[in-house]
C-alpha cells in the first residue's frame, strides 16, 4: 500500500513535469478522481462536525461530569456533617444533664464549677464512657469535653487553661467489630492510666483556649442567645490544635445547665485524613481534581479554613491555604484565582451546615471541585487533538485506498492494452469488453488484404523491403513452408490443412515469422509479399 502511494506520488510528479503535453494516464486520472471523491466525503464530515460544534464542546463535555460529581460529593458531605452535628447536639444534651447531676451529687453546680477544681478530674473521668460510646457511633475522628474551669487558676496561663478530655480515634474510617483505637490527647494523666489509654505525643493536661478560641466563642454566643442546642452548635474552620500535626474541623456544642448556665462545650472532630478517606473522588481521568469544603465569603473561598480531599496527585496541585477569589470562567466553569499564583477552574456549590435559624446561619460554606487551569486545558485539547489526528489518519487512509483501487482497477486494462500490441487470441484479459475488442481485431486481421497499398517514401520503402528480404533467410524450414504458402495467397486455415498442422501451430509459426521479419500483423506481412511479387514482375520485365 505504502509502495503504491509512493508510486502514485511519482506519477503526480511526472504528470506535472509533462505539463499535460501527452494528457494524464488512466491510473492517475482514476486516482485523482477517487481522492477527490473520498476527500469530498471527509470534508462533508468535517463540516458536519464543525456545524454541530463538536470542536467547541470539549469543556462542555466535562461540565456535566464534574457537575454530577460535585452534586454527589456535596450531598455526601451534607449528610456526614449533618450526622455529626446531630450526634454532637445529642451528646451535649446528655453531657449537660449528666454533669449537672454529678455536680449536684457533690454539692456543687454548673454555675460554681470553677470553685471546685478538685472535682474536675472526677467529672471528666465519669463521662469517659459516654464520650467513647458517642465517638464510635458518630463516625468522627475525635471527641472533646471541655469544662469552663481549670484545675489551677493561679497559674500564669490559668485564664486560658480549661479542664478538658480529648480522645482521638486513630482509625475512624475502619468499620469492623473491633473497639475504636483511641488515643488520649488532652486530659488528666490519671484518667489515661486508669483506663489504659495511650497518649498522643502532644499530650497536654488541659486545653489552651487562647490558641483555640472557638470553644470560648461558642460559650459566649450561647450565653448571649438563648436558643436550643441545635441552633447553637458551630463548625470551626479547619485548624491545627496546639502541638497537633493534622488539620481538623470541630463541631462544637455548648453545655447548658437547666438554669441556663453555660459551663462548657463538647465537640466532635473531623480530621483531614477522615475527610480525605470519606470523600474520595470517583471521577476517573481527572488526575489533578480535588475537592474542598471551605468557608465562603461573597466571592472568596477562605482556604485557610478548608479541608481537602482528592487524588494523591492532586495534593501538590492544590492552592495555598490562604484564600481564593471566584469569578466566572469559560465552558460553564468558575475561575478561581490567588494573587500571582496559578489559576484553577472548577465548580462549587454552597452547602448548609446549620439550620436556617441557627446563631451561625449566616456563615456560608461551599463544596468545590477544582483543578489547575492547565489540567482542564490538557483534558480539552487532548480530546480535540485526538479528533484532528483521527481525521489526518483518515486522509492518509484515503490516499492509500485511492492508490490501491486505481492500481487494482487499471492494471488489467493496462495489461490488455499491452496485449493488443502483441496479439495472442488464446489469452484472456477477463475484461469482457477488452476480450471482445481483441477478438474483433483478430477477426479483422484474418480478412483479405486490400489491393491498394499505402505509398511509402522511396528511401524508406527500399530500406524496409531490403531488411525484410534479408530476414527471410533467418526463417526455419517449417516457418519458410508457412511463409511460402502465404506468398502463394493461402489463408492461415488453408495452410493448416495443406501442412496437416493445427491452427494453433500455424499461429505459433506466425508469431515467430512476424518477429523474425519484424512485422506486427498479417496485413503488414501481406504488404511485403505483394511488394515481393511486384519486384519479381519488374525484374522479369527488365530481363
Amino acid at each position, binding site marked *: *500500500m505504502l509502495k503504491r502511494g509512493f508510486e502514485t506520488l511519482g506519477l503526480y510528479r511526472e504528470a506535472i513535469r509533462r505539463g499535460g503535453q501527452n494528457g494524464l494516464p488512466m491510473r492517475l486520472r482514476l486516482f485523482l478522481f477517487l481522492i477527490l471523491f473520498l476527500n469530498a466525503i471527509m470534508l462533508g464530515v468535517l463540516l458536519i462536525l464543525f456545524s454541530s460544534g463538536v470542536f467547541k464542546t470539549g469543556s462542555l463535555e466535562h461540565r456535566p461530569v464534574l457537575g454530577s460529581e460535585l452534586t454527589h460529593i456535596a450531598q455526601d458531605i451534607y449528610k456526614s456533617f449533618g450526622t455529626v452535628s446531630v450526634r454532637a447536639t445529642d451528646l451535649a444534651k446528655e453531657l449537660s444533664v449528666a454533669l449537672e447531676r454529678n455536680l449536684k451529687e457533690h454539692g456543687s453546680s454548673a454555675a460554681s464549677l470553677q470553685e471546685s477544681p478538685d472535682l474536675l478530674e472526677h467529672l471528666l473521668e465519669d463521662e469517659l464512657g459516654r464520650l467513647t460510646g458517642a465517638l464510635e457511633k458518630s463516625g468522627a475522628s475525635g471527641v472533646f469535653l471541655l469544662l469552663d474551669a*481549670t*484545675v*489551677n487558676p493561679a*497559674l500564669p496561663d490559668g485564664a486560658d*487553661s480549661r479542664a478538658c478530655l480529648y480522645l482521638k480515634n*486513630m*482509625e475512624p*474510617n*475502619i468499620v*469492623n*467489630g*473491633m473497639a475504636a*483505637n483511641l*488515643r488520649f490527647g488532652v486530659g*488528666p*494523666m*490519671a484518667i*489515661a*492510666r486508669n483506663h*489504659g489509654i*495511650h*497518649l*498522643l*505525643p*502532644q*499530650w*497536654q*493536661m*488541659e486545653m489552651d483556649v487562647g490558641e483555640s478560641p472557638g470553644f470560648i466563642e461558642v460559650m459566649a454566643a450561647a450565653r448571649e442567645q438563648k436558643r436550643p442546642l441545635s441552633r447553637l452548635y458551630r463548625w470551626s474552620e479547619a485548624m491545627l490544635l496546639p502541638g497537633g*500535626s*493534622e488539620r481538623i474541623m470541630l463541631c462544637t456544642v455548648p453545655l447548658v445547665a437547666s438554669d441556663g448556665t453555660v459551663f462548657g462545650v463538647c465537640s466532635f472532630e473531623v480530621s483531614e*485524613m477522615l475527610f480525605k*478517606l470519606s470523600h474520595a473522588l470517583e471521577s476517573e481521568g481527572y488526575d489533578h481534581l480535588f475537592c474542598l469544603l471551605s468557608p465562603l465569603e461573597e466571592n472568596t473561598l477562605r482556604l485557610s479554613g478548608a479541608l481537602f480531599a482528592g*487524588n*494523591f*496527585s492532586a*495534593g*501538590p496541585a492544590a492552592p495555598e491555604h490562604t484564600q481564593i477569589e471566584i469569578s466566572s470562567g469559560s465552558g460553564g466553569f468558575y475561575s478561581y484565582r490567588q494573587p500571582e499564583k496559578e489559576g484553577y477552574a472548577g465548580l462549587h456549590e454552597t452547602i448548609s451546615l446549620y439550620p436556617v435559624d441557627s446563631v451561625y446561619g449566616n456563615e456560608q460554606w461551599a463544596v468545590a471541585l477544582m483543578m489547575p487551569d492547565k489540567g482542564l486545558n490538557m483534558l480539552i485539547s487532548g480530546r480535540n487533538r485526538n479528533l484532528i489526528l483521527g481525521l489526518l489518519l483518515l486522509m492518509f487512509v484515503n490516499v492509500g485506498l485511492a492508490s490501491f483501487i486505481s492500481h487494482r482497477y487499471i492494471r488489467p486494462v493496462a495489461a490488455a492494452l499491452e496485449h493488443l500490441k502483441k496479439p495472442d487470441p488464446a489469452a484472456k484479459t477477463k475484461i469482457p469488453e477488452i476480450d471482445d475488442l481483441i477478438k474483433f481485431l483478430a477477426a479483422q486481421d484474418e480478412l483479405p488484404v486490400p489491393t491498394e497499398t499505402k505509398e511509402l517514401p522511396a528511401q524508406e520503402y527500399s530500406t524496409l523491403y531490403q531488411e525484410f528480404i534479408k530476414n527471410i533467410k533467418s526463417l526455419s524450414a517449417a516457418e519458410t513452408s508457412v511463409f511460402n504458402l502465404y506468398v502463394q495467397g493461402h489463408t492461415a486455415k488453408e495452410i493448416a490443412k495443406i501442412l496437416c498442422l493445427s491452427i494453433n501451430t500455424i499461429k505459433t509459426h506466425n508469431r515467430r515469422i512476424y518477429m523474425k521479419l519484424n512485422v506486427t500483423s498479417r496485413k503488414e506481412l501481406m504488404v511485403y509479399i505483394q511488394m515481393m511479387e511486384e519486384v519479381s514482375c519488374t525484374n522479369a520485365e527488365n530481363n
Partner: protein
Amino acid sequence: MNKKTIAWTALLLLVLLTACGQTTGLHPKRPVTLTLWHNFGGQMQAMMDEHIEEFNTTIGKEKGIVVSVTSISSSAAIQEKLTMIAAGDPGAPEMPDITTCYPATVALLADKGLLAPMDRYFTDEELADYLPRFVEEGRLPDGKLYVFPFAKSTEVLFLNQTLFDRFSTATGVTVSSLATFEGIADAAAQYHRWTDEQTPDIPNDGKAFFTADSFFNLAQVGMEQMGVSLFDGEKLRLDTPEFERIWNTVFEAAVKGGYAIYDGYSSDLSKTGDILCSMGSTAGILFYGEEITYPNNVKEAVKYTVLPYPTFEGGKKIAIQRGGGLAVAKSSPEKEEAAALFLKWFTSPAQNMRFVASTGYLPVTGRAFANHMEREITQNNNPNIQKLLRTATTVHGEYDFYIPPVFDAFNSVSGSIEANFFTIAAQRHEQYMAHITAIEPGAAYEEAARGALKEFIARQP
C-alpha cells in the same frame, strides 16, 4: 488476495488485538492502588504522609502506582488485626497490600500463604546495601525475605537529666551508675528513699525511678548478655541462675517501689515526672518533649539524656533489635512489583534518613549509616533526636544485637510473661506496702517476695 496482502492484514489484526486486550505490567495509564497500614501516628504521621505524597507524585506517577494509607494504628492493634486475618476470624478486615509488621506475625501470615517474598524483586547488590542483621531478621525459616527492613529500632535509656541532676546533687548517684541494671536498681532504691524523705509527714510515698516498656525484652537481652538464651527452641529457660538474677534485680526494685509497675509506655510516666529514667524503643523519642506536667498543671522545662542500653554487671554489650518492617501481601504480579518499587524508594538512603531524622528509627542501609548519620546529627533541629542519633551510632558500633526468635506462639509467650510479671509484681508490691507499716523494709520484702519467682514460673503455660 495475494500473500503480501494476507500478511499485512494478519499484522494489522495482531496489532489491534494486542491493543484491545489486557496487557500486563505497570503503566501510568492504568495506576495500581496499594493500600497501606502503618503504625506511625501523631507527628510521625505527617512525615509518613509527606513521604507517601512525594512517592505518589514522582515515582508513583511515572510508574502508575498510588499508595493509599487506609489505617494508622498502634503496632499492637495492627498485629492483632493481622493475626485475625491470618486466622480467618469472622469480622477480620481485608488484608492490606503493604503493612508494617513484626517477624512473629509475619510467620503466621506466611504460613497461610498471604505474603509475597521480596527477594525476587531485589538484586543481590541491592540487598547487600541493607544492614545484614536487618535483612536476616526479615527472613523466615524457608529462607525467604518476608519482612523488608524499614523502621528498625533498638532500646535505649531515656533519662530526665533535669530531675536527675537534683537527685544526683543530693545523693551523689551519677549517670555512670546507670550503665548497669544493678546500678539502676541501686539508684532506684536511693531515689525512692530520697523522694520519700522529701515529705516527712507522709510515710512511704517514695517515687519510682525507673521502668522498662517491656520486661520480656529486658529478660531476653539480659540472658543474652550473660551468655545464655531465654529460649530453648520454643520453651522458656526460666529455671536458671541467669534468669533468677534478672528477676531479683528487677523484681526487688518493683516490689519496693523503685521500678514503676505500669502497663503502658514508660514515656507516659516520664511526661508527668513520675519517673526519671525509662527504657524503651528509640522510636519513642517523640513522646519525650521539652517539658513535664505535674498533676496540678504546673509545667517544668526539662532536658533529656539518651544513654546506651544498660548491661548486667560482667555481661556482654548486647542490645535488642526491635522494630518491624514492611510486609507485602501476596497479590497480582503488578501489585507486588509496585510494592517492591515503593519499598526500594522508601528505604533509599536519602528518604530513609529523612524518616530517621524525624522519627527516632535507625537507618536501614550501610550507606545511610556511613554517609548521612553524622550530618544529620549536626543539622537536626530537635535536640532530643540529636542525642538519640549520637547514642544510636555508639550502640551501632559497640553493641551486638539480639534478634528475638520467630515462632507462632512467640506473641502469646511475650504477652504471658509481661502480664504475669505485671500481676505478680503489683500484688507483691501491695503486700510489701502493707507489711512495711508493721515491719522493717528488709523483712517486709522477704515476706512479700516469698515464692514469687516460683509462682511466676508456674504461671507460664
